[in-house]
């Protein structure tokens, strides 16, 4: 037999028992040729183009799913940051575009379409200013549209004016979607060093250096890693890194195969594999559980950051070995609301916002899906975003903030979205003010690290 008995059973165990799945196949579509002086024509062009490339996306992904016996959890679409091709639009027109995107996503049969985005790390055009103002309206009046704004980069520095605006946008989005636990904020990401080929919604967009259309794949599988670590028993850290690497290597290979097949069926080029351990609300599909299995009592204990750093690094190394098209975030995600272990750690007081922030310095994204009291001042939210941007800019890595100031809620209460977004406990935020700092406005200059030429 060309395969060992154990090899075959290992694959079956990963796919059937340990929740190994392809987290997302994301079709990136350029909308740069869709602008027209007449907004109605623009809308029609956008709708037609998304449907032209995306109409069989879901069906093709399902075919590949059954062929290889590996489930694909999400089928999604990302687009050119909307503010770029449609820079001359007004707030009302941007809103019209958002509704068009929502309609196109519904027609194709996908849950989220991402790329209602802008890149303003160095400054804003008039169009981008209008665009950012439109975000709360777009997120509250559509169901499927996801938005992201890049406000800082290692090359450009940290745009504090943009951060202030985004803090306002977050607050306003929370209020406009208060009937549904401020769900709009769960679809809004503020980035530093955003990547152009990230397949993971809500932060996905189709970067400006990307081709006409491309298919990127996001792989996950915390359950698989958890079981491998448990099975390894008490080994030293080098051996543990080896165990993680071997496991990730295999699932990355499988992920790339699936991505290439879906791309082939859609007749579009294959882009990248993003191997990111991302939890889901399902029991056992948790990053917190991995950290605990590595030996910390609970997430938040001293040693947590080191364990996460090692996990993140092992994931990256294995991904690099397994595929020559690794991209996106590639590492470990630590969203609170989507991870049962994280939720429990917050509830019993083991995990604070400050410890989470430290963890984001070594993981692949940032403060993700965190609920804070609804009365948190705008300037404090801006301060949280600025801190996170500083970590990203100085360390030359992507960081993001997806924070939910839960309207009318306080510490101890929950926001509950069900499904993939999960449920987040409202976390305590320091009452100290940073108003005079963020209120200065302007831009924190690019760090030493930017001068590499």
């Amino acid at each position, binding site marked *: 037999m060309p395969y060992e*008995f154990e090899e*075959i059973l290992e*694959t079956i165990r990963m796919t059937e028992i340990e929740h190994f799945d392809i987290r997302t196949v994301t079709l990136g579509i350029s909308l740069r040729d869709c602008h027209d002086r007449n907004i109605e024509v623009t809308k029609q062009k956008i709708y037609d183009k998304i449907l032209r490339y995306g109409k069989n996306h879901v069906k093709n992904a399902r075919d590949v799913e059954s062929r290889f*016996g590996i489930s694909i959890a999400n089928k999604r679409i990302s687009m050119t940051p909307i503010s770029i091709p449609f820079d001359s639009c007004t707030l009302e027109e941007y809103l019209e575009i958002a509704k068009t995107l929502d309609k196109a996503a519904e027609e194709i049969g996908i849950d989220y379409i991402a790329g209602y985005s802008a890149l303003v790390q160095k400054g804003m055009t008039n169009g981008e200013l209008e665009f950012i103002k439109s975000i709360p309206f777009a997120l509250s009046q559509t169901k499927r549209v996801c938005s992201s704004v890049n406000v800082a980069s290692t090359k450009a520095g940290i745009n504090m004016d943009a951060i202030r605006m985004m803090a306002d946008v977050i607050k306003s989005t929370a209020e406009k979607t208060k009937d549904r636990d401020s769900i709009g904020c769960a679809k809004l990401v503020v980035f530093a060093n955003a990547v152009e080929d990230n397949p993971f919604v809500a932060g996905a967009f189709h970067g400006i250096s990307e081709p006409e259309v491309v298919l990127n794949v996001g792989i996950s599988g915390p359950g698989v890693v958890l079981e491998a670590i448990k099975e390894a028993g008490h080994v030293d850290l080098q051996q543990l890194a080896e165990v993680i690497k071997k496991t990730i290597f*295999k699932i990355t*290979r499988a992920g790339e195969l699936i991505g290439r097949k879906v791309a082939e069926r859609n007749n579009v080029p294959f882009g990248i594999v993003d191997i990111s351990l991302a939890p889901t609300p399902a029991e056992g599909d948790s990053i917190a559980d991995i950290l605990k299995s590595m030996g910390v009592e609970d997430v938040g204990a001293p040693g947590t950051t080191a364990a996460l750093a090692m996990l993140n690094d092992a994931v990256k190394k294995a991904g690099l070995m397994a595929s020559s098209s690794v991209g996106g975030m590639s590492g470990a995600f630590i969203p609170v609301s989507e991870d049962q272990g994280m939720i429990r750690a917050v509830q019993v007081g083991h995990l604070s916002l400050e410890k989470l922030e430290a963890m984001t310095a070594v993981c692949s994204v940032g403060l993700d899906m965190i609920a804070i009291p609804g009365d948190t001042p705008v300037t404090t939210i801006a301060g949280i975003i600025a801190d996170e941007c500083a970590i990203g800019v100085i360390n030359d890595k992507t960081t993001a903030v997806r924070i939910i100031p839960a309207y009318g809620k306080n510490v101890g209460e929950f926001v509950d979205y069900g499904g993939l977004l999960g449920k987040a406990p409202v976390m305590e935020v320091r009452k100290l003010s940073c108003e005079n700092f963020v209120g200065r406005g302007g831009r924190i200059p690019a760090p030493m690290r930017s001068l590499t030429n």
Partner: protein
Amino acid sequence: MKLNEEEIRKITFEAIQELGSEATPERIKEAVRKKIGETGGGEYNFKKGDVSSGRVILTSFGLNKPGIVAGVTKALGEANCDIQDLTQKLMGDFFTMIMIIDISASQKDLKQIQEEISKIADELKIKIYLQHEDVFRYMHRI
């Protein structure tokens, strides 16, 4: 026999030259199709085809009882699937069986065979997975 890409490219260039200024994508396609028909190339799939093998791996497990192998192989035989390899292990009351099957001669596609097999799995109250060989090749072979 299928034409290779090189030959098709040559035919396409010839067609473009013959058509000269009248060449449009549609007309070239038409001319190339005709030419391929003449040279006996038969139908050529213009889209890049699936070059991987037609082999799938069947894995089944459950409580041991009489008739499992018979049930599975009967369905495979009816679908004209060729069993190329088979191993089986018993662990206490549990059995595991793995088969490598070539389905390229079958009149049914993988999805239809999966549906047939899942009916049998329900009848016998066991689990059967049918996956294309590539996924194992990618995961366990470099």
